[in-house]
């Protein structure tokens, strides 16, 4: 048995012990277990994994160019931030997501509102859009590259396609399903069409619409990765490709983490804005 293997065994044993130490050994200790904060419980696995990973990398059990230590990834992010590289790439990725999401969500809102409000428009437009939806969005890439070139336009177009469908679908379906009993109340009090939309339909569909915006934003992040992987000279996705080309796994992992953080933060912001709009209705 090599020293490396011995180390690994030792580490694994240690990790298992660390986990089981939190679990109850006999019924008398159950209350201790219950007292543990749920959130604390959720941290056990990621922290352990990071710890094991760090040790494995430090002891060079795993080749560092294959799986660098978490500390090395952190250092890479720090270096990128200090050199200004991070800001440059983050800004370009963020603006792509923002432009694509705004474009896609606006189109989704317009088409969703139109098809949700007018049955005629729904019959006319919805089947075509549903057919387009069944095309895996990445399949548009070659066409967009051909039509719109390899510059920003094709990337933003791809992101818009991603953001469009959840917004469109959620809004359209929600408007279609507004309780007819509530619409009758609006009719009783002689609301104009505009008032019907503003005072009844809009507030009624708002929760579903916000869900649509959130999933649209999520897809926008997914598609910016695709767009930047497939041909970009800047952006976090480009950093990934660069890391792959130059064999720097730390850069790839750093990019992954950056995408996760940006995605999470933007979703959180969207959620907070939604909760504000929903007011008391948000749980």
């Amino acid at each position, binding site marked *: 048995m090599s020293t490396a293997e011995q180390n690994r065994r030792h580490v694994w044993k240690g990790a298992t012990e660390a986990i089981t130490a939190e679990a109850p050994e006999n019924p008398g200790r159950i209350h201790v277990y219950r007292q543990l904060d749920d959130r604390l419980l959720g941290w056990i696995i990621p922290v352990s994994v990071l710890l094991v990973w760090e040790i494995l990398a430090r002891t060079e059990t795993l080749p560092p160019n294959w799986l660098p230590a978490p500390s090395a990834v952190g250092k890479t992010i720090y270096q990128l931030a200090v050199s200004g590289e991070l800001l440059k790439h983050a800004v370009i990725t963020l603006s792509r997501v923002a432009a694509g999401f705004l474009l896609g969500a606006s189109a989704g809102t317009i088409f969703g509102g139109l098809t949700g409000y007018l049955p005629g428009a729904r019959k006319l437009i919805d089947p075509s859009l549903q057919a387009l939806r069944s095309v895996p969005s990445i399949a548009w890439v070659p066409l967009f590259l051909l039509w719109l070139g390899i510059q920003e336009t094709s990337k933003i177009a791809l992101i818009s396609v991603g953001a469009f469908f959840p917004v469109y679908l959620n809004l359209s379906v929600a408007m279609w399903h507004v309780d007819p*009993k*509530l619409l*009758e*109340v*609006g*009719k*009783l*009090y*002689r*609301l*104009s069409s505009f*008032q019907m939309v*503003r*005072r*009844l339909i*809009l*507030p*009624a569909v*708002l929760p579903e619409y916000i869900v649509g915006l959130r999933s649209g934003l999520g897809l926008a992040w997914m598609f910016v990765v695709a767009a930047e992987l497939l041909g970009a000279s800047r952006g976090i996705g480009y950093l990934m490709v660069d890391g792959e080309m130059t064999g720097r796994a730390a850069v790839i992992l750093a990019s992954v983490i950056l995408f996760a953080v940006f995605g999470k933060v933007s979703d959180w912001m969207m959620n907070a804005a939604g909760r504000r*709009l*929903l*007011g*008391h*209705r948000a749980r």
Partner: protein
Amino acid sequence: MYTRLTDSFRRTRCEPFKNLSSIMVKDGFDRRGTVKIEIVQKAFSGSKGTLLALKDILLTIDPGEFVCIVGGSGCGKTTLLRIIAGLETEYEGSVFLDGKKLTGTGLDRGVVFQEHRLLSWLTVHDNVGFGLAGLPAQELSREDRCRDIRHYIGLVGLDKFEYEYPHQLSGGMSQRVAIARALVGHPEVLLLDEPFASLDALTRIRMQQEILRIWEAERTTVVLVTHDIEEAVYLADRVVILSPQPGTVGNILPVRLPRPRDRTDREFVRVRRSVHDELFAPGGMTQLVADNF
């Protein structure tokens, strides 16, 4: 645009009124609210052909009168109420309010449904105010709106709940809000479609007393649809019995008992039995329904 959008979600708050005596009182001399119903027939066409819901309904309701329409499920009583409300416009015949032929919905009629149909995103105040939403701003000032809304929230006894949301209210309270919303536009006729059917028995009795109190305060014409015989006899000046398939006026029984009525009173029981007999007479409603099953 943004402010207009957020307006839909912002709750309205009113300044307290300095001059409480200015609260409007309905003109007692102007007796309006005569409903004249002349329905030849009302049919629904479905996949299985047409169904005749109502036929030959001739009925005149006097101003300030409390009329209950009683009948079993499927006898067309809700359809009749929806026609008066203006929610059903495809029928043969006409309905007149104070001599004017009705063509659609209008603020001259207030409607309360079996479900409260309150808007979950609005406070009690704004839900009641929704009854005035269709009025142009120049017709009713912000202050007058607030005053009227407050008046009716007070009338249904919910002063302390003005800024609560519907999910914070009980079933009976929600129905009170719905009644306030129906009254806030000063309708001549209040139309109630089984308004207490989904409430528990004790709340129902309390609400029946309340609707009488509100009716006495407002003196509007009231048409209440119910399948509860006791409710009809307790509330109505006249009980209209609707026989089913097609729905037509079976009989009209005046109830001349003084209010408040005692449900155990001998005369009350007698009237209740005659309504009951009318509904369950041989060859009457139960027979017809049984034949159809």
